[in-house]
């Protein structure tokens, strides 16, 4: 199977429902700063650092090289987002 996508350096922060609700209700906050500075419960010890573990997607695509596959998958459709 061949790699299709890769995600790395994800920063997770712990919080609580009550604190998250307060963040949602205050639209003028900066989420990373608030979580880093005062919203992380004191009893949770792991620090706010990026995860060193990457996540990679693999699929059983049969193709010889990426460029030809992109041509094959480049179907012409209207944008619907």
């Amino acid at each position, binding site marked *: *199977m*061949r*790699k*299709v*996508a*890769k*995600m*790395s*350096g*994800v*920063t*997770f*922060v*712990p*919080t*609580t*429902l009550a604190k*998250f*609700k307060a*963040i*949602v209700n205050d*639209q*003028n*906050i*900066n*989420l*990373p700063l608030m*979580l880093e500075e005062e919203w992380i*419960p004191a009893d*949770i010890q*792991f620090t706010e650092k*990026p*995860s060193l*573990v*990457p*996540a*990679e*997607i*693999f*699929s*059983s*695509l049969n193709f010889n*090289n*990426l*460029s030809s*596959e*992109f*041509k094959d*998958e*480049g*179907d*012409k*459709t*209207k*944008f*619907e*987002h």
Partner: protein
Amino acid sequence: MEDQVIGTHVIFPAAGHIIMILSAGYLSTLSEFEEFRHPRQPVHVSDLSIHAPLEMSKEIMLNIQTLVNFHNESDGSEISIHKRMERKEASKPWVCHAEAKFSSSIIDEDISNSNILDIAQLVSSLTPEDPNTFYESVHESGLNFGPTFRCIKQIWKGKMGTVCQFVIPNSGENYFVHPIASDAMIQALLMSQQQYMSHLTLPIKIANFSWYISLSPRIVYIFTQI
């Protein structure tokens, strides 16, 4: 969208921000006018930072703006996502919810043959686990996945890492990166590290996300190496 709820709040997921950044970056630089082709080269999002949770509601109409600041082909674009609650609140400022960089340059890793993995051999050395255990655990902490986002169907764990199997659904919508796929990667990272499952834990930054090829609905695997 109601399939991803924190407490009682329907929150636009980090995976959704990735898709919006990718779509805005791609449409503003690579795609042809008024047509949407799947990208013919890898696309990348870097330095994604979520500044504020973007709450969704059926009762309140949201105005969303995506701003693209294109620099050049090598440096890519800086993209930010902004929200204002309703049009009548014109005096209220736009709130920046997320920003990131977009680029489409091909790097050597994208086309390397070393990116091939024998999933069957890898899984044979790992131990299967029930993905429902993960979903029940994060539900207790306040993160509720509905049926659509409970997408991971099988997990295998071991010293080599964690493998998750999920299915990209045939939704009929024209995603070149399906939100289920990018969200499943975040879920896989949560699953791979036990301490993330015991508390409400949220992604707020993603350093790099690369998408090498478009995928039709199919069974795919996520590998996280511990």
